[in-house]
């Protein structure tokens, strides 16, 4: 459904992603793991059109989207939940969700958009309680739910998630991961999930890729990666200490 082939991305002279290839099949959850600065965010941003690759191509649903603008890509059916959530803080929760439907908004669709919004509210009831509040007043976990809800309002076929668990307590991260799984199970949504928290990501994923300094160095079914000695040493060991640190805060 989404195929990335030999992508090179630069920031000026910094070669952030090197000949990276990966693919995501319809209905799959694919985890992309890697340490800080590995190039995960860069890769996702290239797919969603925020960055242009220097070489390589990206095909989605049989259509080449490599050099389309971000607005065309969201229209094509790829929604990106960015790192750090990036909700529109001064706008209300409801307005944030409404803007999620911007690319397909028209007065004729008002009814449909309201229904979609209700569906998001029933998935994340706390958003409904706070729908008139500025998004900036929400907690980190709530903002993440809002960012996901906003992306879903675009009615995507593929959801790109960049570190949805960043800075959240482990139990909240787990809750968000559960929602991701149920989105796939209930609505057939396809997910490309970026995480530093490799263990949780691989647990819900079908397949995984490991990115190191801009290169894909390993790939395979998620269970295999979880058993892989290199992965365990590099990413899973640290995972446990991560969680200890969080619970100590």
């Amino acid at each position: 459904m989404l195929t990335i082939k030999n992508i090179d991305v630069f920031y000026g002279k910094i070669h952030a992603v090197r000949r990276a290839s990966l693919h995501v099949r319809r209905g799959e959850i694919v985890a992309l793991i890697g340490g800080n600065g590995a190039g995960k965010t860069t890769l996702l941003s290239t797919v969603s059109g925020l960055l242009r690759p220097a070489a390589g191509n990206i095909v989605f649903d049989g259509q080449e989207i490599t050099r389309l603008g971000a607005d065309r890509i969201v229209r094509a059916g790829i929604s990106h939940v960015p790192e750090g959530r990036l909700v529109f803080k001064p706008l209300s929760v409801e307005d944030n969700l409404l803007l999620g439907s911007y690319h397909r908004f028209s007065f004729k669709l008002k009814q449909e958009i309201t229904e979609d919004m209700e569906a998001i509210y029933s998935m994340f009831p706390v958003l409904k309680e706070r729908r008139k509040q500025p998004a900036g007043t929400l907690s980190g976990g709530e903002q993440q739910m809002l960012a996901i809800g906003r992306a879903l309002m675009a009615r995507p076929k593929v959801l790109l998630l960049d570190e949805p668990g960043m800075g959240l307590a482990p139990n909240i991260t787990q809750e968000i991961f559960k929602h991701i799984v149920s989105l796939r199970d209930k609505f057939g949504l396809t997910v490309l999930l970026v995480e530093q928290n490799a263990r949780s990501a691989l647990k819900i994923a079908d397949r995984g890729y490991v990115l190191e300094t801009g290169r894909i160095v390993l790939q395979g079914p998620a269970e295999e990666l979880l058993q892989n000695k290199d992965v365990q040493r590099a990413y899973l060991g640290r995972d446990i200490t991560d969680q200890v640190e969080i619970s100590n805060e």
Partner: protein
Amino acid sequence: MLVLGETVMVLLDYIQFLISGLTVGSTYGLTALGFTIIFNTTGIINFAQGEFLMLGGMLSVFLLKFLNLGLLPAVLLAIIITTCVGALIERFTIRPVQKSSTINLIIITIGISIFIRGVAMLLWGKDTYALPSFSGDTPLSFFGASMHPQSIWILSITLVLLCLLKFFFARTIYGKAMLACSFEKKAAYLVGINVQRMVLFSFMISALVGAIGGVILTPLTMTSFDVGILLGLKGFAACILGGLGNPFGAAAGGLILGVLESFGAGIVSSAYKDAITFIVLLLLLFVKPSGLFGQAEVERV
């Protein structure tokens, strides 16, 4: 009897000050609205905003004089041309360097204002020009004070524009999308907003509002190539007074400034009229930096 007469006279004076203050204040408010629109979309303070008022007024004068158009066509054409100037500014000076820091972009707008003023001076010289009022010059009586008919035009057009803009930003998805561009540009791209187009629109709307302000003010105050400097500064002060980014605050800030100036000039001395603005501004910045109607940042980390 004499004392009573004097009280009435003073009261009449005050009404007079209030009317002229509100009138001039409206145009400060419109200028401030122009600042607000661009600021809300881009985070830039456009110091060429005052030039839009100058262009609106000056172009009207010249279209009327040299093309022999009627007042209404001349004014409309002036507003349209100024709006296009706003679009050109965005397209050729802001867009090519949009990745620069906000402060660089602000400095660019200062350069643009100097450029526009220079061109205006070359074209039209340093003379002062007048524009006929929209509906004659016979003063209307208002509670015993006299009111220029143009004041009514100014007040009502300002009010209508303010309501339209308020509606646009608070109630329509396109207005909210424009706000979203400044709040979180990356996320605006990701929900499918064409950010560049929104920035272009914000410059056009600001130029439009500025031009309308210039056009309705010129019959009262005359115009010349350099009126944009002071009007721009006053509008900026009004913006800060009302809380940067808040359209209602901007307009209210303008009205308050206008009224303060008018009373200051009437009661103290007209020599201090322009100083008043800046004294008020400085005081406010010390006491409440977020502006009279500004909210503290809403954020929880």
